[in-house]
């Protein structure tokens, strides 16, 4: 099901409201031309989680934070512009409900936001902090990598900042250019002590975010911003959590394993459909969900079964997280592989504005890679 143009218009309005560049008409042209680089595939929530309602991803994230604030009196939500509801509406209504002391704006300073969250967590609060775009997380890199990730280890477990969660919108949005499109997960995947999670839609986002908030390690939660409004499905209204460090086989198959995360999972699901239709190839699609620690077993079991694998991500190729997965697969599945491990990713360039359709690992680039891998 392709996102309707009406829906996409809404996405445009919402996103461009906060982009500091570009003229409206130009941006509109861009987005109309290539916004639907993917088709959203809905998730089915587990029955045991109870009643559901139709929810998009920003609402699901809002619901997770609302539940976290309800169930944990020490929890606070903060960041740039979160008080009025957030530039992507994720914290809408939370300040009215939970008070100005618990849902509040911070000064515009990412290193301060993360450090403040670490301090809250060290003192026993649950800190849910927001970095407005993942592209702007780098000023906080020192606090995340040198401080948050190492807090428990370096103190011999005397203190920790395990109740810290950092949320950040990430990845392509159609017209985000260099600084509203990045997928920085690989920078952080090289840092022991962190957990990194990327949901593929509303149902996963709510359960995984609640898990991150309650997890005893500092978590980075990257939210593919293009899904905030385009992704809509039935989501349990109650409190539920989904496991961290666990990959999902979102579609079973026998000829090739396709591995991705975030928006790219939907691209891969469509590729699987096209491959089936066009050259009768059965693809197994895996969403690895957690970048760190990642679920090596699920991926390697699948590759041992299919003998072929393609990994796809939006971030650049060189040292992208696909490299880690590929290296592990060749080590664990060497005797099972019938073709080289294939990677389809963004190019080793900054994320471009007008060339976005040619930059992203589109379904056509992925489809070509599947074809070449199967016919190797």
């Amino acid at each position, binding site marked *: 099901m392709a996102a309707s143009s009406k829906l996409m218009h809404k996405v445009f309005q919402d996103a*461009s*409201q*906060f982009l*500091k560049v570009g003229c*409206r008409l130009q941006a509109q042209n861009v987005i109309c031309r290539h916004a639907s680089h993917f088709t959203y595939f809905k998730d089915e929530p587990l029955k045991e989680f109870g009643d559901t309602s139709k929810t998009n991803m920003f609402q699901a994230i809002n619901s997770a934070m609302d539940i976290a604030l309800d169930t944990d009196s*020490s929890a*606070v939500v903060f960041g740039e512009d979160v008080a009025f509801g957030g530039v992507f509406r994720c914290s809408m209504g939370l300040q009215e409900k939970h008070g100005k*002391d*618990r849902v*509040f704006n*911070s*000064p515009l*300073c990412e*290193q*301060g936001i993360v*450090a*403040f*969250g*670490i*301090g*809250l*967590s*060290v*003192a*026993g*609060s649950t*800190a849910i902090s927001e970095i407005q775009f993942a592209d702007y997380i780098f*000023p906080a890199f*020192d*606090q995340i990598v*040198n*401080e948050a990730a*190492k*807090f*428990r*280890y*370096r*103190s*011999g*477990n*005397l*203190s*920790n900042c*395990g109740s810290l969660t950092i949320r950040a919108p990430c990845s392509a949005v159609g017209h985000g250019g260099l600084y509203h499109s990045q997928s920085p997960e690989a920078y952080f995947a090289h840092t*022991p*002590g962190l*957990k990194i999670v990327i949901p593929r839609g509303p149902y996963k986002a709510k359960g995984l975010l609640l898990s991150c908030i309650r*997890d*005893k*390690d500092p978590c980075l939660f990257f939210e593919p911003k293009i899904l905030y409004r385009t992704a809509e499905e039935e989501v349990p209204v109650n409190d539920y959590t989904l496991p961290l*460090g666990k990959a999902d086989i979102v579609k079973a198959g026998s000829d090739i394993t396709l591995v991705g995360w975030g928006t790219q999972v939907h691209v891969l699901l469509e590729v699987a459909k096209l491959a089936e239709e066009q050259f009768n190839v059965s693809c197994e699609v895996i969403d690895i969900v957690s970048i760190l*620690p990642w679920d*090596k*077993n699920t991926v390697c079991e699948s590759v041992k079964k299919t003998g072929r694998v393609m990994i796809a991500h939006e971030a650049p190729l060189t040292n992208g997280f696909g490299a880690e997965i590929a290296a592990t697969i060749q080590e664990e599945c060497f005797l099972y592989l019938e073709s080289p491990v294939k990677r389809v990713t963004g190019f080793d360039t900054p994320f471009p504005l007008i060339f976005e359709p040619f930059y992203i690992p589109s379904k056509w680039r992925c489809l070509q890679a599947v074809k070449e891998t199967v016919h190797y």
Partner: protein
Amino acid sequence: MHSKLILRNLRAVGTAVRCFQSSCASSSAQLNLETQNDSRNSSAPVFPVDFTSKLQVTTERDVPKIPIYQVLGSDGRLIDSDQRIDVDEETTVKMYEAMMRQNILDGILYQAQRQGRISFYMTSFGEEGVAVGSASALESTDLVYGQYREAGVLMWRGFTLSDFINQCYSNDEDLGRGRQMPIHYGSRKLNFITLSSPLATQVPQAVGSAYAFKLAKNGRCVIAYFGEGAASEGDTHAAFNFAATLQCPVILFCRNNGYAISTPSREQYRGDAIAGRAVGYGLAAVRVDGNDIFAVRNATKYARDYCMSNNIGVVIEAMTYRVGHHSTSDDSSAYRSKEEVEDWDKSYNPITRLRLFMEHSNWWNEEKEKLLAKQIKADVLKAVAEAEKKLKPEISELFTDVYYEMPDHLMEQSAYLADHLKKYGEHYPLDNYKK
């Protein structure tokens, strides 16, 4: 009326600019804002100052410098004989003993590093009064974030000589499990957050902890120590601004000792040092003679009361001098004269100054001094001898505490190392580690 109109026009322009950037608001929205009758109903920015028709530039010279608060003169007598000191003989002697223990411990561990017995060390010479004086003014439940030259705070709170020495020797009794370089102390029991090397990272963290304590209404305060060099880091800016805007009861305590390694403070900043920055952030500030332990204590006590009752950060800047080298990896004679160091140590030493005061008060004499120094030296040497004999932690502790629970990949790597050591163990210093 005229300035009010300008204000309104400026606000309208400001709104228009923001709307242009976000391409969100229609022109009617601007009109609505413009016709709002009272700015107090709006969260739009207002200028809280008067306009002037005279073009004027404000320079550093137009703002008075913050004076240095003193209680004790360098002769060990009260500057102002009417001044009252809230410490009795017992507390004063306790403060003196803590400074002396720090000083003698520093002397011995510095030598231990020179002899290659420990890998690294940093002394607190000349700054013992800053740490002990401020620590004595805090409640024991107040949370401390330090930089690395505040071991006197732990000394005051009861960290034992063995606690210090075991950390420096990275043995199995190091509370930090031998993972960090020497002098990176921490104690959960004493509410002292484990130190880390990256400068100034602790300052905005302390602000976050203070916010948590404010919400928990637990009556606890937070103090963050940092040097004047660290104050140049972006994290210190973050801390000052967050402490003010989010109204956090935190003491931001700067040790201004004149040098950041080789960089003299005149190459570190040009304004009224660190305390002079506070008002720009809307924080309160005190500048104090860091070699005067009573002044440090009084200022910290006042700052604690002030920040707790007003829910606002307070900056304390203690002016002092780094008598020792920056660290054991530094020879400070490469960038400053021996005479300069000797002058400072002789004229402004915080230990000497307090000792003179105690002697004037008939609380101290040569005999007590000799006895104390001898006892501390013996205690330190005994603890060093014990620490040297102790094994290092188990090798498997390389892998624990990375996460709350050990993930599969770390279990695999731990098992791999254990297997490797079975096969190649003779090439590693296995005997030094606990089994």
